[in-house]
C-alpha cells in the first residue's frame, strides 16, 4: 500500500488508496453538511441579533444578524415587566416535580416489566402499550379533564398529562434490560425484597437510562404549550412557552407582559420584545443542550424502532 499524506491518520480506512470519487464525495460532504448546519442555526442568530436592535431600525430595515445600533432596551423591558420571573419559577417547578415523579414511576415500571420472572409482565406491558395504539381523541379528553376532573385553570392539567408515556416506559424497560439479571438474583439470595433490590441495586446501575428518560421528560415540560393552550387560558402566570405563544399571537398579551408604568402602549417595541422574550424563554435550552445531546442520541438509538 502506498503511503500518503497526514490526513490518512484520521482515516477510518487508512491503508487503502482513495479514488478520485472518494475525494469528490468527501468534498460534497463538507460543503453540504456545513451549509445545512448553518441553516439550522441561522434563524436563531437572526432572532438573537434582532433582539438587540432598536425598534425603529427593525421597522425600517427589517430583522438582522448584526444590529445597526446595539441596545438592550427590549431585555430591560421584559425584565422590568417582572412577570417573566413568575413564569420562569412556574416552569422550573413544573419541570422539576414532573420529571422527578415521572422518572421514578417510569424506572420502577420499566424495571418490573423486564423481569423475566414476573408472570404478569406481558399483560401489563400490553395494557400500557395499547394506550399508544388507540386514543379517545382530543374532544373526549378535553371533556374529561374539564367536566369530570375539573382541571380547567389548574397547573395539574399541565403537570399530569406530560408525566408518563408508554414510549418512555418502553425506553426505560430497554435500558433496564442491560442491567445484568444476576444482580437481581444475588439480591434475592441476600433476602432483599423486589423494591429493595430496585432501589439499592438496580437504580444506581440505571444511570444512563435515568439521564435519557429524565431529559426527554424535562424537555417536554420546558417546551410545553399545548396542554396550557387547552386548559390554562385564563391564568395570570403562564408556563414560559405558552407565555411566548400568547405574546407572539395576541397583541394584548404583549402589552400585558410589560408593566404599564414603564412604557406607553403607543411606543411599545413590539418586534424586539417578541425576540427578547423568545431568547429568554429558550436561552437555558440553547446553553444546556450541547452538553446533554448525547443522552438524547442514546435514547434514539436504544428506543428507535423496537418497542
Amino acid at each position: 500500500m502506498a503511503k500518503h499524506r497526514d490526513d490518512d491518520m484520521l482515516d477510518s480506512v487508512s491503508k487503502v488508496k482513495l479514488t478520485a470519487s472518494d475525494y469528490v464525495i468527501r468534498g460534497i460532504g463538507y460543503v453540504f453538511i456545513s451549509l445545512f448546519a448553518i441553516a439550522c442555526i441561522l434563524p436563531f442568530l437572526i432572532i438573537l441579533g434582532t433582539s438587540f436592535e432598536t425598534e425603529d431600525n427593525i421597522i425600517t430595515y427589517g430583522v438582522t444578524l448584526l444590529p445597526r445600533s446595539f441596545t438592550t432596551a427590549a431585555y430591560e423591558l421584559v425584565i422590568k415587566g417582572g412577570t417573566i420571573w413568575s413564569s420562569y419559577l412556574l416552569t422550573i417547578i413544573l419541570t422539576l416535580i414532573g420529571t422527578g415523579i415521572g422518572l421514578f414511576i417510569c424506572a420502577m415500571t420499566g424495571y418490573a416489566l423486564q423481569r423475566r420472572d414476573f408472570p404478569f409482565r406481558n399483560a401489563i406491558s400490553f395494557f400500557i402499550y395499547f394506550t399508544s395504539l388507540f386514543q379517545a381523541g382530543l374532544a373526549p379528553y378535553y371533556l374529561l379533564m374539564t367536566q369530570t376532573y375539573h382541571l380547567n385553570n389548574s397547573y395539574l392539567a399541565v403537570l399530569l398529562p406530560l408525566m408518563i408515556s408508554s414510549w418512555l416506559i418502553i425506553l426505560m424497560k430497554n435500558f433496564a434490560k442491560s442491567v445484568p439479571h444476576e444482580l437481581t438474583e444475588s439480591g434475592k439470595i441476600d433476602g432483599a425484597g423486589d423494591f429493595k433490590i430496585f432501589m439499592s441495586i438496580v437504580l444506581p446501575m440505571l444511570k444512563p437510562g435515568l439521564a435519557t428518560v429524565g431529559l426527554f421528560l424535562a424537555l417536554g415540560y420546558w417546551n410545553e404549550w399545548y396542554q396550557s393552550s387547552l386548559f390554562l387560558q385564563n391564568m395570570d402566570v403562564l408556563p414560559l412557552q405558552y407565555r411566548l405563544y400568547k405574546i407572539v399571537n395576541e397583541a394584548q398579551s404583549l402589552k400585558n407582559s410589560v408593566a404599564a408604568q414603564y412604557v406607553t402602549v403607543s411606543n411599545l417595541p413590539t418586534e424586539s420584545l417578541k425576540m427578547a422574550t423568545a431568547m429568554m424563554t429558550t436561552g437555558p435550552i440553547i446553553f444546556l443542550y450541547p452538553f446533554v445531546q448525547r443522552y438524547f442520541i442514546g435514547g434514539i438509538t436504544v428506543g428507535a424502532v423496537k418497542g
Partner: protein
Amino acid sequence: MTAINPKKPVPYSVSGSLRKKLWNSKTLILMCVPAIIYFIAFSYAPLPGIYVAFVNYNYRKGIFGSPFVGLKNFDFVAKSGKLWMLTKNTILFNLVFLLLDNALAVIVAILMKEIQSKSFRKVSQTMMFLPYFISQVLVGLLVFSLLNSDTGFLNVILKGLGAEPLRLYKTGEPWPFIITLVHLWQKTGYNSVVYFAAIMGIDAAVIEASMIDGANGWQKIRYIILPSLRPTIVILLLFALGGIVKGDFGLFWNLVGRNPTLYQKVDIIEMFVYRATVSDFNFSTASAVGLYQSLIGFILVLSVNTIVKKIEPDYSLF
C-alpha cells in the same frame, strides 16, 4: 431460585397457581400500580367519552344525557367534503414527509461518515440538532421572522436585490412547500442519528476489502452502505406508514393555525379537531372526526405490524 419460572409447569391447580403467582409477585405488581392508575386516569378514562361523537352534545345534559343522533355527526363532515379534504391533506403531507425525511436523513448520515475531522463532525452535528430542542412556538416565530413581508429576513434580502417583496402570509399556495421545508429543517438532525449509528455499525473490514478490490466512492455507497441500511430504512418507513393519519400538529398550528387564509390550503385532521374543540366547542363533530382518525390509525398500525412480523420478526411491536 425462589421465584416462579413461568416456563416450568407449576404443580398447583389453576386458581392456586394464580394466587401464588399474585402473592409471589406482589411487590412487582405494586411497582406497576402507579403507572397503571395513571394510564387508567388519562388514557382509558376518556374512552367512554367517545360516545359524544354519536350525540348532539348539550353542555347541561352532559355526554350521556344528550340526545343520541347516530352517525349524523359523521354524515355532516363527510357530506360537506371536509372529511375527505382533511384525510387527503393529512396523508399527502405524511407521505411526502416520510419519503423526504428518510431520504435526507440517509444522505446526511452518509455524508457525515465521509467527514474525517472529528471536531468538524461534532460541531456540525450539534448545530443540526438544535431545531429538535426548541418548542414549536419558537419555530413559528422563527419562520415568521424569516418570511413576513414587512420585516422578514427573506424580504430584506429581496429588497436589497431590488426585487418585489413576497407576501407569503397573504396567500395559501406556497405553504405546503414551506411547511415541508420547515419540517425537514427541524427533523433531519434527529432522524439522521439512527442512520448514522447504522453506518458506523458496518464492519470496517468490509469497506476496506471493497476498496482493495477497487471500488470507488459511489460504488461503496451503492453496493455496501445503502444495502446495509436497507432493513433500517424499510422498518422506519413501515412504522411511519402506521402513523400516516397522525399529523405534526404543533408545527402546522404554530405556522398557519391562526390564519384562515393559510390553513385552508394545508388543513389537517388534528387542526380541524383542535379548532372544533377549543374555538367552537363543537365536541360532537370534533369527536366524530377524532374517532375516524383513531380507527384508521389503529387499523394501519395493526396491518403494518403484521407485515413487519413477516419480514423482520425481531422488530415487530407486539
